[in-house]
């Protein structure tokens, strides 16, 4: 759904607060409400964005993209720093197939 939030006099509303409000409105729990894409209009006071409400958390985990799950706190983040990622890749270059995964984690340790 498209959500229009009117918040005069204050900066835009946080995802968490929005999730709570929406859950109350639609009879769901905050963990099933996913909000994204909020843009505040010029001059402030109004922002527009999207929200998705799922039937259950399992359904959400199956459908939602990883970054939104991470925002929600459910998803697991991989390695963020680029240096570490590159090192991991270089370690895995030496091997082929399933041995790559073993080598990557082994090297790190």
């Amino acid at each position: 759904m498209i959500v229009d939030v009117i918040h005069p006099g204050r900066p835009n509303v946080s995802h968490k607060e929005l999730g709570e409000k929406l859950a109350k409105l639609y009879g769901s729990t905050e963990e099933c409400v996913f909000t994204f894409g909020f843009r505040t209009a010029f001059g402030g006071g109004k922002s527009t964005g999207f929200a998705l409400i799922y039937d259950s958390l399992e359904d959400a985990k199956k459908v939602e993209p990883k970054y939104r799950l991470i925002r929600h706190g459910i998803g697991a983040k991989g390695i963020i720093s680029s240096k570490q990622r590159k090192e991991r890749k270089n370690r895995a270059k030496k091997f082929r197939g399933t041995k790559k995964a073993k080598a990557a984690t082994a090297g790190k340790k």
Partner: protein
Amino acid sequence: MVSKSKSSSSSDAEKFLESIGVSTNSDHQDVSPELAKAVKSDAPLLVKSLNSLIESITSTKSKLNELKERIRSETLPTSKGVSLLEVKLHSLLSYLTNLSFFILLKLQGHSTAAGHPALDKLIELRVVLEKMKPIEAKLKYQIDKVVKAANEADGKGASKGSASGTVVGWEGEEVERKGVSEYELQAAGVSDPLQFKPNPRNLVGAMSLDPTAPTYQDEPGSGVYRPPKIAPTKYTEDNPKKKSQLSQQTRESLSKSRLFRDMREAFDTARPEQVTSHGTGYGLRELRDAKDEELQKIEDFELDNYQRLGATRDRNKREKAAIRRSGTSGIVDEMENLETDFLHMESLDRAVSFDDKQRYGAGLLAKRNQRAEAVFGEGDESGARKRKHMGDADEMLRFQSKQFSSKTGYDKAIRKMTRPSHKKRK
């Protein structure tokens, strides 16, 4: 038999009808009442038309007799004329004969069915006449010329006592035979009767009629060409890349800049101020330009597909190009740009003063030179003074900043401002 009076009273008509044996009384046995009525109503018309017919017949008869006499006395040659016209004459005569026969048939009550030979002949002749019309139209000019030549020759001939009433034949020899020579025709102003294209000599003939008239050609017999005496002027090659002239591109880009627009607004009082209602929400229809349309499209897409679009490289490029073209970066903060504007003005002012100093000198001498130039205009430019020729204002400014290059922050800032950003730094 019929009275020549113009009154078409019914009594006259009745008298006439009775005389020719038609009864208008309805109680006669042979005549039905409707027929009698019709005859009575048409009678005055009949009388009128018959009167006019008789008049025209008498006049034509007299003319024809005259022509007959002329032909008989052989003063009117009828051979070697325009063949088309001969055909026309004969066909018209034939037409008339057939037409009169046709009327006779009708009067006597015989049937004039479609297959009647007289009718066929009439149709044939009609077709011929119709076909002749466009050909005649094409020949009209030439025929008129010939007739005119003949008339002129006629007139001249009459004055000189030669035979009158000549018809100029299609060949030129006919003219000579009848005593009108080409010389006479030329004198009459028609240089050659066979030359039917536009003839300027005809105009000359008109002019030579009055030899005392003033001509517009002085000394026609001198033969030497004397050019007109005009004061000598300097030849100036059109050189757009002069030292202080800006190229067209620079001029355009400068005119679009905010600084110049503000100055124009302040000083050009004749020009009314233009403010667009774009974005104000007023007006019959909300003004929208390409940018607005694009934004709206993006907005619609985002809401439909539940995803936000980020800025792409080519969109950014287009935006920057549009800003450069328009000269403004959309909504501008005036205070922010004030400083840059002043810096621009400062550098320009310095550039101009430096240039003036080089050109005119300093102090009193400068004033004198300026006034001299204003009065006499720009003189010889390839003078002894060697001066650098600048490409355009940008170059000049850069030159200035180099000239006065100090290490102060102010000058550095100026150099930074006046350096063109799109050019690569060498």
